[in-house]
């Protein structure tokens, strides 16, 4: 590999170096070179040896943790399509009277998801490089994770241009204007989603966006001979809003429609419609296990968010048992089921733990996580117009995190002041 490095250094690098023709594009070259080779920079003063970890490895491990969610999300698109066919009474995958195999479901989903991933990375990294060139600083690795998160929180039918616009908005407005990676106040991927949620509500919420109902192009035409154009299917959270008075929660959950079953098991495993990567609690738990084992995600935030969500869910269960709230079905979803629905698990594991936008003090992380859990279930239940309460809860707590830290630190300062006074007295 020394030869490769020598080749880069002698043949490719010169125009990018000081005085070279392409000097402006140095950040771009630098990003690629340091991707391939950790530079031979040595310490000068202070600690002469340094930890093996760097930001690239940290970010990469988060991506590894996201892979189960990505793979399952791709598979789930095919699975949901097969379920729609079944519900419509057409068991005819590839023209044969059978269900799709899991591999076929996966192959069905891939052409929907991978372009979104590519678009998100291309747009996001493009903007990062542009800002790197303008500001003359090297390119930080922060977007490696955001670029994967953004497609995973999109509905499957989201057009690519919308992914591009949302990504561009988030990278510029949520990150670069504050100074880039490490300086942002809001989680970048959630900002993208929130922007699209409010800017293009018809594509981001409602009953029509959570399924892919067939390809119309020749590429996969064989896979979807009967395009179901106008299939309407909601997420479980959406469904409950439209439920007529008098129905019971169990009947709603059990009888949504032939192909669907929002039972606790299915919502835990993820066989339900929803944003691409966020339906499966199991996959989120695998991701959480990776993040916690490697020490990259804060277990405190995750644990306290789950506690907060459970507390709030339990409280609503209690309200639901009261006479006065008898016809609000939302209150009747058991708290543990609440935690398995929607993007709660995904948000808690991958979004709330973003260290830049979360609380930074150890005690602050506890309050930050707890309040995210409480707010997510509160928003979702008290205002069902926003079924994805977790998104708003995390964004709100991103804004509040510095305030939480302020009070935690203030406590420490007061302790020190008190000690100083005692010493004088």
């Amino acid at each position: 590999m020394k030869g490769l490095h020598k080749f880069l250094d002698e043949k490719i690098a010169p125009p990018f170096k000081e005085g070279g023709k392409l000097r402006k594009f140095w950040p771009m070259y630098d990003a690629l070179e340091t991707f391939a080779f950790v530079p031979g920079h040595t310490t000068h003063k202070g600690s002469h040896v340094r930890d093996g970890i760097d930001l690239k490895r940290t970010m990469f491990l988060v991506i590894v943790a996201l892979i189960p969610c990505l793979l399952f999300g791709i598979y789930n698109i095919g699975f949901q399509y097969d379920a729609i066919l079944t519900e419509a009474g057409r068991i005819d995958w590839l023209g044969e009277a059978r269900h799709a195999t899991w591999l076929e479901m996966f192959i069905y989903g891939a052409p929907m998801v991978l372009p979104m991933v590519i678009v998100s990375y291309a747009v996001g990294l493009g903007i990062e490089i542009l800002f790197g060139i303008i500001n003359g600083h090297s390119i930080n690795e922060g977007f490696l994770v955001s670029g994967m998160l953004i497609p995973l929180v999109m509905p499957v039918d989201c057009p690519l241009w919308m992914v591009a616009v949302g990504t561009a908005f988030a990278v510029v407005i949520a990150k670069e204007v504050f100074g880039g990676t490490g300086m942002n106040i809001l989680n970048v991927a959630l900002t993208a989603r929130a922007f699209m949620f409010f800017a293009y509500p018809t594509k981001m919420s409602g009953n029509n966006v959570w399924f892919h109902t067939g390809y119309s192009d020749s590429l996969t035409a064989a896979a979807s001979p009967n395009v179901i154009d106008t299939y309407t299917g909601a997420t479980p959270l959406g469904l409950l809003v439209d439920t007529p008075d008098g129905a019971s929660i169990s009947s709603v959950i059990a009888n949504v429609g032939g192909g669907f079953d929002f039972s606790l098991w299915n919502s835990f495993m993820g066989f339900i419609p929803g944003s691409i990567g966020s339906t499966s609690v199991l996959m989120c738990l695998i991701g959480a296990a990776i993040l916690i084992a490697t020490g990259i995600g804060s277990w405190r935030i995750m644990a306290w968010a789950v506690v907060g969500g459970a507390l709030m869910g339990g409280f609503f269960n209690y309200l639901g048992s009261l006479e006065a709230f008898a016809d609000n079905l939302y209150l009747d979803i058991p708290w543990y089921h609440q935690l398995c629905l929607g993007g709660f698990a995904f948000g808690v594991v991958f979004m709330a733990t973003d260290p830049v936008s979360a609380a930074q003090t150890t005690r602050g992380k506890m309050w930050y996580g707890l309040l995210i859990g409480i707010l997510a279930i509160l928003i979702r239940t008290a205002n069902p117009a926003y079924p994805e309460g977790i998104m708003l809860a995390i964004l709100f707590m991103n804004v509040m995190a510095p305030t939480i830290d302020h009070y935690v630190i203030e406590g420490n300062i007061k302790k020190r002041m008190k000690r100083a006074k005692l010493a004088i007295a």
Partner: protein
Amino acid sequence: MSRTIKIRKGADIRLVGAAENTLKESAACSVYAIKPTDFHGLIPKLLLKEGAEVKKGTPLFHDKQNPSIVFTSPVSGEVAEIVRGAKRKILEIRVLADTSNTAEVITKPSSMSSKEEVTNALLSSGLWPFIRQRPFSTIARPSDTPKAIFVSTFSSAPLAPDADFVMQGQEAAFKAGLSALSALSNGGKVELGVSSEGNWFNQFSADANITTYHGPHPTGNVGVQIHKTNPLNKGEVVWYCNAQDVVNIGKTLTTGELSVDRIVALVGSEVSSPAYFSTKVGSQVKTITTGNLKEGNSRIVSGDVLTGDKVNEDNFIGFYSEQITVVPEGDEPQFFLTEGWLAPGFNKFSLSKSFPTWISPKSKKFALNTNMNGEERKFVVTGQYEKVFPFDIYPVQLVKSIIVNDIDMMEKLGIYEVAPEDFALCEYACTSKINVQSIIREGLDTIMEEFK
């Protein structure tokens, strides 16, 4: 009464090359040097010119701000060279040793309990600079009265010398040194910080307040011990001194002849047989390293690998250094898949759990090199500093307040209690490769300016 304090936060960096318990004589040293740069914030004023004859204990220069603090020659001979750097800054005062072994006579204090006499003897002999102060980690000012004097008897830094081994046979001198120090704090007993793994120092339980510490690095840092037992508030001063220098103080004040003996551990993965060497303060690095290093491109550090100074064989051992650490240079680029950021990294020691080595047994040691292992980035990961920082202080917030130069906030967050060395592990662990120790030093300098 001794008490025990357990410290959980921190980390031991497990390096290859700890010293064997053998004491060797260092090679004959012909040139010695005192480096004003070893004393942070000191402006030296020369007292002698090149070519002047000196005895052991003859003042070479003094502190411009406190002229009573003099720095004396560790040997008899002749001022060979005054090495200057940019802007004629004095870097080294070199003394060519002769064989006459003449020494200045130091007025012994008539009683070890007289603060004035002990102070004068320490100042005139040139031993005073061994006494440093917190805040700021600079040489103590003789006009202050410290609220306590601390001696951390052990270092918990990577490959640090074993205090019990180094102190063998120094009982009487150490005891004399302790009583001299307690005279300086108006009779208050010296606070002795002792490692739970050693027992040599426990014999002084009548002469000092002993506190036993148990825990990983930086437990041995005097700053941690001060914080845990008698934390420093704004306006207060604490003095501290290394155990080997307590011995020198004891010897000098009882014999009347300057003693600047030092046992230095030569350690690290690039040392062929790590051991202890008996030498003197200010001796040349090569008197210890020659013939003891492995082949290859390596870095010699005067001090421990977390806080020491980069030196070469012709340089001189730092005034306060008790070890020389030699580690490989890491100036080769690392391909990302084989040894870089995406490699499994079975040879990388990390305080994060992102390398498989975190499950390896504690007995496994690593040969780390000086590569940065990444490029400097903005703060991203949180909670890393807190894990290795046993103070009740918010390290990241303190660092940030220094970066934005908010003096009020630095004070509130406790900058008086810390020194750069206390942040050495934070600097090691930092994912964003931020040079935290330099930032802390900058913050302390800013505050020192305020006091001028």
